[in-house]
Structures are given as C-alpha cells and as structure tokens.
C-alpha cells in the first residue's frame, strides 16, 4: 500500500549551510513516528517541507503517491493537519472560531459556517475534552489550553495525517502526559498517521512506534524506540559523554514510584486542571 505521506531523500540548503541531507521517512496509518534532534538539527525545516510550505532542493514529498508540489493548498490541507509549536492570535477570536478556521478553505467565498462545520468543530473540541473552552477568548487561554484547541482544530480538518511540532513543550507535567496519551489514541482509534517532533526521549518512548534521530541534517538512527533510544545513541545525538547521560537517567529513575495519594489536608485542591477532562 502506498504510504499516505512519504519523503524521499530530501535535501535542503540555506546559503552556506546544509540543513537536510538525504532524509527519508514514510508515515503509516495508525502509527506515531517521533523525530528527535538537538536545536538547529533541521527538524522544523523538515516539517515545513513535509507540509509543502517549503520546497526541498533535492528529493520529493509524495502525498498519496503524488508529488506535493503539484497540489494546491486546499488539497494538501485536506490530507495533512499541522499543530505548530505555538499559535498566537492578534484578535480576540473564541476557541470555537479558531477551530472553525479549519473549515474555511473548503467554504465558498462569502459564506457563514454551516451547521455541519459547527457540529464537526464542537465534536473536535469535545474529543479534546475542551468543550468548556469553546466560548472563551483563545488569546487569553493558557499554553496548554491553546494547544488543546489547536489539536481540536487539526481534528476538525478531518485529515488522515497529523504533524505536530513539539506538542508537549511548555505544558506542565500532567498535561504533557495527557497530550501524549491523546496523540497515541488518535493513531490507535482514528487510524491517523502521525509525525511529532520532541525534545524529550521519554515522550518519544511513551507515544511513538518509530523513532528518527536527526543530527546535522542527517538521520543518525531509526527504528523501534527500544532499539534507538539507547544512552550511547542519545549521547551522540546531544553531544554529551555517555556517563553524564546515564547519571542523568539514573537520577530521573530515582523518582519514587508507588506510595499513597496525598490526603485532603495536604492537597485541598483536587489535582485536576481543565485539561484533565481530556483523558
């Protein structure tokens, strides 16, 4: 079967600097691929090329077997939804307005949102557990809440492919875990082909079926999380001595697992944020 999205031997240069060399990837339905790499390794450029927002110097991106350069923006947006690292709005749109924008390119000029569009947008917010945010002003929401709304917008695009740029960055620990669970669920339950970038190996372990390590524009390793996310590989990826890496992992592993939940006297507020409805 043709993979819904496949990149073949992508190369990209800025003047005086090579950003990507010979990078290939196939996204498959129902699977999550995670892309890890240090700052400046070419992750964002890679995503922008996959989305057809940037033209590669060499290689090609195939969307359902066809060259993405030959497709217009509406067609691409019908197949790939994108969740950027950060979304800002200069005007006070509500969250529902923001989600409805997923449908705008399919509407004829000068038409209001149809009741079908609204139903899809509300269902997407509901799926993210963000129904209560629908009428709130997007620009006044917290980072985590915004990220949920933008993920709902990506769902309302009803695409088979989802690309996320560091979706858990900036979220608190609990919301990071919820976000990763949600990404896994979207792949398992809805069969979406998902690519996410991340800076945290534990996020990749928690949610991905395949890992790509990108360094200096080259794929360093690729494979199942257990095979790729080893301390020697990560030490090379992030230019750290292996011992330092392992020391860090041991420290992180010393987090206590088990014990009792705090009593009400220690924790008067229930540990639920608005996001906790989401899972």
């Amino acid at each position, binding site marked *: 079967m043709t993979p819904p999205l496949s990149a073949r031997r992508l190369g990209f240069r800025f003047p005086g600097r090579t950003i990507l060399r010979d990078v290939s990837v196939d996204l498959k339905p129902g699977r999550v691929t995670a892309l890890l790499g240090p700052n400046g390794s070419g992750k964002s450029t890679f995503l*922008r090329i996959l*989305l057809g*927002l940037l033209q590669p110097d060499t290689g090609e991106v195939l969307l359902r077997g066809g060259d993405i350069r030959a497709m*217009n*923006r*509406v067609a*691409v*947006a*019908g197949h*790939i*939804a*994108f969740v*950027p690292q950060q*979304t*800002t*709005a*200069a*005007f*006070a*749109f*509500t969250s529902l*307005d923001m989600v409805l*924008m*997923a449908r*705008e*390119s*399919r*509407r004829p*000029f*000068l*038409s*209001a949102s149809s009741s079908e569009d609204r139903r899809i947008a509300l269902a997407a917010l509901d799926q993210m557990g963000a129904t209560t945010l629908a*009428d709130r*002003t997007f*620009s*006044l929401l917290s980072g985590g809440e915004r990220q949920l709304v933008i993920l709902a917008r990506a769902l309302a*695009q009803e695409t088979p492919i989802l690309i996320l740029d560091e979706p858990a960055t900036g979220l608190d620990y609990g919301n990071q875990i919820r976000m990763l669970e949600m990404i896994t669920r979207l792949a398992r339950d809805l069969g979406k082909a998902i690519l996410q970038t991340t800076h945290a190996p534990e996020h990749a372990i928690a949610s991905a079926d395949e890992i790509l390590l990108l360094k200096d524009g080259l794929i360093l390793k690729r494979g199942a999380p257990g095979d790729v996310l080893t301390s020697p590989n990560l030490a090379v990826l992030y230019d750290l001595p292996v011992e330092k890496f392992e020391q860090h992992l041991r420290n992180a592993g010393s987090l206590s697992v088990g014990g009792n939940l705090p009593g009400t006297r220690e924790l008067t507020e229930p540990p639920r944020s608005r996001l906790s409805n989401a899972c």
Partner: protein
Amino acid sequence: MKPRAWVLPGFAILLLIAMIYALGAGRFGVGWIELGQLLAGQAPPGDASRWSNVFFQLRLPRILAAGLVGSSLAVAGASYQAMFANPLVSPNLCGVLAGSSFGAALGMVISTNWLVVQLTTFGFGLAAVGVALGIAAFFRRSSDPMLILVLGGIVASALFSALLAIVKYLADPYDKLPSIVYWLMGSFALSEWPLLGRTVWPMLAALGVLLAMSGRLNVLSLGDEPARALGLPAGRLRLVAIIMATVLSSLTVVIGGEIGWIGLIIPHAARMLTGPDNRLLLPASALLGAAFLIGVDTAARTMFRAEVPVGIITALLGVITFVAVLGRARKGWA
C-alpha cells in the same frame, strides 16, 4: 465577545438617520415636512429649481461621497488590520494616504485629465504600501514585526510627505497650489455627480471583493504559514486584499482629499460590538464608517459660519480615540 445579531440592523438605521439629517441640515434650512415631500418626489411650494438644486446637485452627492469614503476607509482599515495581523495599521499608518496624496498632487500638476490623477493616486498609494512592507520585510528578523510594520508606515508617510512638499513648492502658487492645499485638508465641498461617477464603481467592486473574502481574512490574521497550512493560498489572497484596500484608500483621496483616522477608529469601535470575525466586522465597519463620516461632514459644514475641512475634524477625533484605544490595548484587542 459573541457576535450580536442587532449590530448590522442597528448600524444601518444609524446610517439612515445620519443621511436624512444631513439632507435637511445646512444653511439652506429645510423643515421635516418639506424634506418628506422631497423624498416622496413632490416639489415643496416655492422655487422648485432651487430646492432640487440644493438637494440633488449639492447635498445628495456630497452625502453619498462622504458615506462612500467613510465605508471605504473603514473597510480598508479593517482589512489591513486583519491581513497584517496587526490592530494598529490603517490606511494612514501604512502610508497609503500620504502616497496617494502625493500621487494626486502630482497628477493635478502634470495633467488636467482625471483618469491620470486617479491612476497616479492609486499608483503612489500602492508604492507607499510597498515601501512600508519592504521596510518591514527587510528588518523582520531583528525586530518585533508588529512594531516594524508601523514604523515602516511612518517612514513611507514621511517619504511621500516630503515628495508632496516638493510638488507643492514647485506648483503654480496662484493657480494649482491653493487647490492642492485646500483639497488635501480633506473636504467634500467639491463632491459632485461626475466625480462620484468616476470613482464609485471601482470602489464598490473593491468593497465587494473584500466583503467576499472576509472569512479568509480571519484565517490570514493568524499569519502566513498557519493560513497556508489551513489550506489558503495566503500570498495570493494577501496580494488581492492589499490591492483592493489600496484601491479603496487611494480613491477616497481622489474624492475628498486626505481624511485620516477613519480606517483606525471605526474598525476598533465596530469590533467592540461585533467581535473580531471579519464576516461581521467588515459590513459593520462599512455602515458605521459611512454614518460617522456623514455625521462629521454635516458638522463640518454647519457648525461654523465657514466650512471646516472635514479632515481636520476626523484627525482631532481620531487622536482622542486612538489614545482611548491604547488604554484598552493593554487588556488585549477586542
């Protein structure tokens, strides 16, 4: 804020009231009964030709011109704000009005043909936006993009004001200079049917195009890449919107000279009631802009014995409103 269904009918009624009041107001006072008779197509008693002259040759075209200019500047302002994702831009702050004023003055000096004036007005209006955007693009990496676009507009305004000064300096001081100076202050005193006839169609077309793409402007206001990822050809849409908004702004200069601030204050005022959705905001701005400028123009020609250039009044009101808007800005743009 939720869009409110009554905003459009409310603004339409306001516009109607402003038009009827403006028809009746003036040195040549008209009572409500005569006004009713005239509107019903019956000539009131007395000198019929004088009535119809004041009404149909002086006041009606002037009111329509003020309404058209008010709508155009307000819709152009709201559109610029959406497509540049920047609530502070307006035809003034983009430099369009300064560029158009220079173009118009140049056109008046080099030609007596109105088509030439219209083309130079539009051409230099577009050139001024180009200068502002060019500066913003050149410095976008080193500065806050919202701020740099406003600064780019200030630079473009300064450049074309200087060029305008050169044209004024070289213009014939007995013939062309006074008409350039008076007309650039902003006034509808010379609005007559032929002038309206030359400008109304391109303006209505540009208004129509912007209203039709108002939903797309919502998405464009998120920025270029997000809009493209959501399926819009952002570059092409923005180019169309810039050209349409610049047609509107520059032709207002052809009709009434440089009338500032409408493009900034009306969209902000309307947005407080409609929320940011351009599908509601653009028609609301068109109605409110028309009602506002008809009101201000009526005040300009009736408040004092001699007529005050309307551009001076809108500038004074604009400064006050702008300061009030800045106060709100800290709480987020409505």
